[in-house]
């Protein structure tokens, strides 16, 4: 009786998991298919799974639109803001972990709270501020906001990572005459390298996926790909372009998916804010 119950539960688990996998993967699968279809094949009934593929959509997006330039914009914006927030975050995290600073936890919470702010509340001041500063539609219009929001995240994670390293290591190095920068470079960073990289990857993905601020603070020049992808949506007189839209979607997803596959074990830690310890 007990064995029957156990194997029933296992069967149910398998079915549930199987359904969930199909449910999660199907949209992606269908998008990939659509990207290789001509417009006629897209409208076909019954829906085609096996069909002669065409590269027209891919050709169109990569060669005839400005999509590649927008892609580069995203890489620059996300890259620089990740760099900025990881570097500054490292310094702040080290200070919070090692130094005895007054009102340390208040500062920590203040920085963390930046992530909680809805972008809708920030966009108005940013819009006016950046117009005044003359940096609208430049990379900095996005790098600055992203860095601040990401700083919250990086400080939070890096701080808990650094706290796990015994401070005796730092102290002995400092006694031997090393400067704090040396300590950071030679001791801390190598020790936390995995978490450091995982956090950087996560922040990079977060920055390249952002839409709200990106759509409102950039125009044609500095527009990142998260906004550019909407050029394939049917709007007004522009008709449906399911083929190119699918291509754009896949191109956008590729970096996230690749990065995620490599670092998934460590990204889990990032998502749980280190709350759950194995």
């Amino acid at each position, binding site marked *: 009786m007990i064995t029957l119950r156990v194997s029933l539960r296992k069967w*149910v*688990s*398998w079915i*549930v*998991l199987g359904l969930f996998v199909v449910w*999660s*993967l199907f*949209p992606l699968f269908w*998008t990939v298919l659509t990207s290789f279809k001509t417009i006629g094949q897209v409208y076909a*009934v019954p*829906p085609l799974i096996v069909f002669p593929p065409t590269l027209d959509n891919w050709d169109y997006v990569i060669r005839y639109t400005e999509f590649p330039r927008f892609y580069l914009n995203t890489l620059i914006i996300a890259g620089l803001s990740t760099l900025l927030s990881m570097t*500054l*975050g490292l*310094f*702040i995290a080290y*200070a919070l972990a090692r*130094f005895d*600073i007054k009102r340390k936890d208040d*500062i920590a*919470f203040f920085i963390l*709270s*930046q992530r*909680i*702010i*809805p*972008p*809708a*509340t920030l966009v*108005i*001041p940013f*819009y*006016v*501020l950046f117009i005044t500063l003359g940096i609208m539609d430049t990379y900095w219009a996005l790098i600055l*906001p992203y*860095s*601040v929001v990401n700083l919250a995240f990086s*400080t939070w994670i890096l701080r808990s990572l650094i706290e796990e390293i015994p401070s005796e290591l730092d102290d002995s190095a400092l006694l031997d005459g090393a400067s704090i920068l040396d300590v950071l470079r030679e001791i801390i960073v190598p020790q936390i390298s995995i978490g450091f990289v995982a956090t950087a990857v996560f922040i990079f993905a977060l920055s390249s*996926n952002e*839409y*709200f601020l990106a*759509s409102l603070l950039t125009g044609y020049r500095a527009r990142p790909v*998260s*906004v550019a992808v*909407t050029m394939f949506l049917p709007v007004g007189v522009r008709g*449906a372009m*399911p083929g190119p*839209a*699918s291509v754009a*979607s896949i191109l*956008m*997803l590729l970096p*996230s*998916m690749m990065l*995620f*596959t490599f670092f998934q074990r460590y*990204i*889990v830690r990032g998502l*749980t804010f280190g*709350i*759950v310890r194995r």
Partner: protein
Amino acid sequence: MKYLFILPGLLLVLFVVVYPTAFLYYTSLTDFRMGRPATHFIGLDNFIKVLGDPFFWNSLRATVVFALTTVPIECILGLLIAMACANIRSERLSTILRPILVFPVMLTPVVVGMIWVILFNPDYGIVNIALNMFGLTSIPFVSDPFWAPIVVALVDVWQWTPFFMLILTSGLYAIPSEYLETAKVDRLTSWMTFRYVILPFLLPLITFTLLVRLIDAFKIYDVIYIMTYGGPGISTEVLSFRIWKNMFLERSVGYAAAFSIYLLLIVVILANLLQKVIKKVMR
């Protein structure tokens, strides 16, 4: 000397956040409109006007309904899947399975919106084609005031259930095995094991994740903009969307600022709850 470390970061935060936020508070007390030459200080008029604005209450309703439907569903589904995953003993399979199951979380909301909008398209979307094959008429999902909110909620559930699954799986693995052994020895049924052993352990984690997701759900904008543009009519016009409309379509910056502060207030209250929960979980 030690303050030098924090200084650059704090400066950045000060400049990029504190100053604009102060500006936001100030603007909400004026009647600043884009393109109008003069602005006047009008005190709390904007705030009173927001409370009397039917669009505000509609967007509040839309946002709350959205958040309170998607987040619990994601939690329960995520828990179910996590338990199903934990029942599968094979280690190798779960390392392969985990990235597959979780990847929707890493996708850009904009792209997710686009993919699903294509799937739900009345003419060539696979969902409607499947409906037709079963003899049902096509449903214009995105242009129907009944279906549009459901579709948007569905997309959010699709993307974020894996978030819950991921976190709760880690939680499940953290339960000390002695408790589960004891439950088996005591011949507890699965339901009782769940209710008295598993659930108490997971409760802090569930609460934490629920609050995090709730805060995010209140801020939703991207998917709405891509899939329904607040429509049809105003059925899916959430708070962030309404703020955007006020600011950029109707150009009333001062009014939109007051609107934003209401949203900020809600989120801050939720975040305070989150902070208390974090303190409790961290022991």
